[in-house]
C-alpha cells in the first residue's frame, strides 16, 4: 500500500486545529461575512478528506456510521428551528430583536458586524454546517474507503 511518510502524518496532525478553527469561524460568522453553513461545512470536510488520505490504513472499519447519524441530526435541527417559528408562520425568525440569544437589534446600514444579532439565522447556519460537513465527509469516505479498505 502507498504508505504515507512520517512528515505528512506530523503535518496532518498540526493542520487539524487551524482548519477546524477556520471552518467553524466561517460557519459562525455566516450572518455577518460571506460563507455560512455550506461554505464552512465544506472547509471542515476538507479536514476529513485529509485525514482519510493520510491515515487510510489506521482506520479499522469505515467510520461512515457516525457521519450519517450526524447528518440526520444536523438536518433535523434545521427543520425543528423552522418548526419553532410556527408561532407566527413556518420558518419565521422568532429570535430577532428580542435581546435574547442572537437577538440584539441592529439599525439598517453599515455596521461593524455584531455577532449577537440576526435571530435564528446563526443557529440555522450551525445546523447546515453540521449537515454539510458530515454529508461531504460521508461522500469522501464512501468513495475512498470502499476501494482503499477492501480493494476488490
Amino acid at each position: 500500500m502507498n504508505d504515507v511518510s512520517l512528515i505528512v502524518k506530523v503535518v496532518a496532525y498540526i493542520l487539524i486545529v487551524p482548519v477546524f478553527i477556520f471552518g467553524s469561524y466561517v460557519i459562525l460568522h455566516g450572518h455577518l461575512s460571506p460563507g455560512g453553513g455550506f461554505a464552512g461545512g465544506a472547509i471542515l470536510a476538507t479536514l476529513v478528506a485529509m485525514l482519510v488520505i493520510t491515515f487510510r490504513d489506521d482506520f479499522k472499519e469505515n467510520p461512515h456510521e457516525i457521519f450519517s447519524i450526524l447528518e440526520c441530526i444536523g438536518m433535523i435541527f434545521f427543520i425543528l428551528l423552522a418548526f419553532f417559528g410556527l408561532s407566527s408562520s413556518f420558518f419565521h425568525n422568532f429570535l430577532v430583536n428580542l435581546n435574547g440569544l442572537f437577538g440584539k437589534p441592529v439599525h439598517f446600514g453599515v455596521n461593524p458586524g455584531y455577532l449577537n444579532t440576526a435571530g435564528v439565522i446563526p443557529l440555522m447556519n450551525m445546523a447546515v454546517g453540521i449537515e454539510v460537513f458530515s454529508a461531504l465527509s460521508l461522500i469522501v469516505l464512501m468513495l475512498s474507503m470502499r476501494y482503499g479498505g477492501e480493494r476488490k
Partner: protein
Amino acid sequence: MEVGREMFIIEHLPALVIAIPLLAAFIAPLLKRFGKHAVSVWSILNLSIVECLVIVLGYRVIKDGIQSYAIGASIPSLLSPNGLPVRIILEVDAISSFMGLTSISIILLACIYSACFMKKYKSVERYYSLLLLMAAGIMGMAFTGDMFNMFVFLEVLSISSAGLIAFYAYKGEAIEAAFKYLVISSISALMVLFAIALLYGQYGLLNIAALGAAFRFTILDKIALALLVSAFVMKCGAVPLHMWVADAYGEAPAPISASLVVASQISLYALFRICFTLFGLLPAIQIIAWFIILFGLASMFVGVTMAMPQKDIKRLMAYHAISQTGYMLLGVGVGLAVINDINALNAFGIAAMEGGIFHIINHAMYKGLLFLVAGAIIYRTGTKNLNEMGGLGNRMPITAVLFLIGMLSITGLPPFNGFASKLIIYESVFLFNPILSVVAMIVSILTLASFVKVFYSAFTGQEQSKYKDVKEIPAIMLVPLLILAFLIILFGLFPGIILKLLVKPAVQALLDRAGYIGVVV
C-alpha cells in the same frame, strides 16, 4: 385550548403538508435501532398524517377559495407587505390540491406495499428516507406559488427518485437507468432555472402570480416559455423526449415505479400551471397549445406501438404510462387551444380539460395497480421476462383478478374508470378535430392488444414446473392492491360525482387566472 390547537393546525396547513414528510425523511435513518419494522411503520404513519392534512386542505380550498401562505412572514396571510410579494408564497388552489391528493395517496399505498416488498433488503432506512423526500418534493411542487421554489422542489424530486431508481445496486442496468434519469432531470432543471433567470432579469419577480400580472410579451418571454414547456414536457415523458421513461420505470423497484408515475404527473401539472396561469394571456399560447396536442398525439401512438413488442413486463407498462400521458396532454391541449374564444371553450374546451384532468387521477390509480401487480409477480417468480412466466393464474388467483381489473380500466372498457375519462376526451376532442379522436380510439385498441398478451403470457397457459411452489402474495402487499381496485371500481361506477366533486373545481381553478393572480397582487 382544544379549538386553539385545531385552528392552529388548519391555519398552517400548506406549510405543514410539505414540512412533515421533510422532517420524517431525516428522522427515518435514525430509527434503525428501534427494530426492523420501525422505519416502515414510521413512514406509513407520517404519509397517512400528510394524506389527512391534504384532504382537510382540499376541503378548505373547495369551501372558501384559494389558500395562500407566506413562509416566514409574521402573519401567514401577509403576502406582499408593500405591494411586492417578497417571501416564498405557497398558493393552493383546486388543481394543486387535486394533484397533491392524487400523488400522496399513491405514495402512501406504495409505502404500505414496500413495507413487505423491501423487507429482505439491508439498507431499508435509506429507501424510506428517499421515498419521504420524494413525497416532500412532489407536495412542494404541487403547492408552491414561487417559480424558484418549484425549481428547488423539482431538483429534490429528481435527486431522490434517481437514488431510488438505483436501489438495485447489484444490477448494472438499474445504475445505468438512474444515471440517464439524472442527466435528463438535471438538464431540464437547468433549463427551467435559465428560464427563471430570464423572467427574473426582466421583471425582478419570482412569484408566479406576480409574474403573470406584470407581463409584457417580449421575445425573451417567448424563449423562457419555450424552455419551460420543453423542460416540463421532457420531465413528464412525452414522446420525442420519452426515452428515459422506459429505463427508469423498468429498472426501479415496483413501488418506486408507481410513485415515479405520480412524480412525472406533477411535472405535467407544472406544465399546465405555466401554460394557463403564467403565460395565459400571451397570444402565442395557441402555438404552444398545438405543440402540446402534437406531443400528446405522438406520445399516444409511439408509446403503444413501442409497448407491443416488449418482453419485459415493467418496460411494457412504462411505455403504456407514456401513451396514457399522451391522453392527458391531448385533453388539456385542446382546452388550451380554444381558451380564447368563449363559445368553443364552453362547447367542448372545458369538457376536454375535464377529461384530461380526470384521466390524471384515473391513470395514477390503475397504473399504480398494474405496477404493484407486476411487482407482486416479480416478488414471487423472480423473473421480469414475459416469456419465462406462465400459468400463474391458478397459483395467484387474487393477483390475477386484480391485474384483470387494472387491465380492463387502462384499456377503457365500460364499467371501469378509464372508460369515463376516455369517453369525455373522445367526445370533446372529436368536436375539435375528428382525426385526434380517431387516433385516440385506435391507441386504446392497441393498449388492449398488448395487455391481453401480458395477461395470457403471465397468468394463463401451461403450468410451469419451476413455479409449482408459488403462493399468493402476503397480506400487507395485498392491501394497497385491494384499495386501488376498490377505488377504480368506485370511480368507474360513480364518475358523475367524482367529476363534480374533484375535477370540475380543478378545471375552474386552472381557467380562473385572475383569481389566482388576485390573491397575491
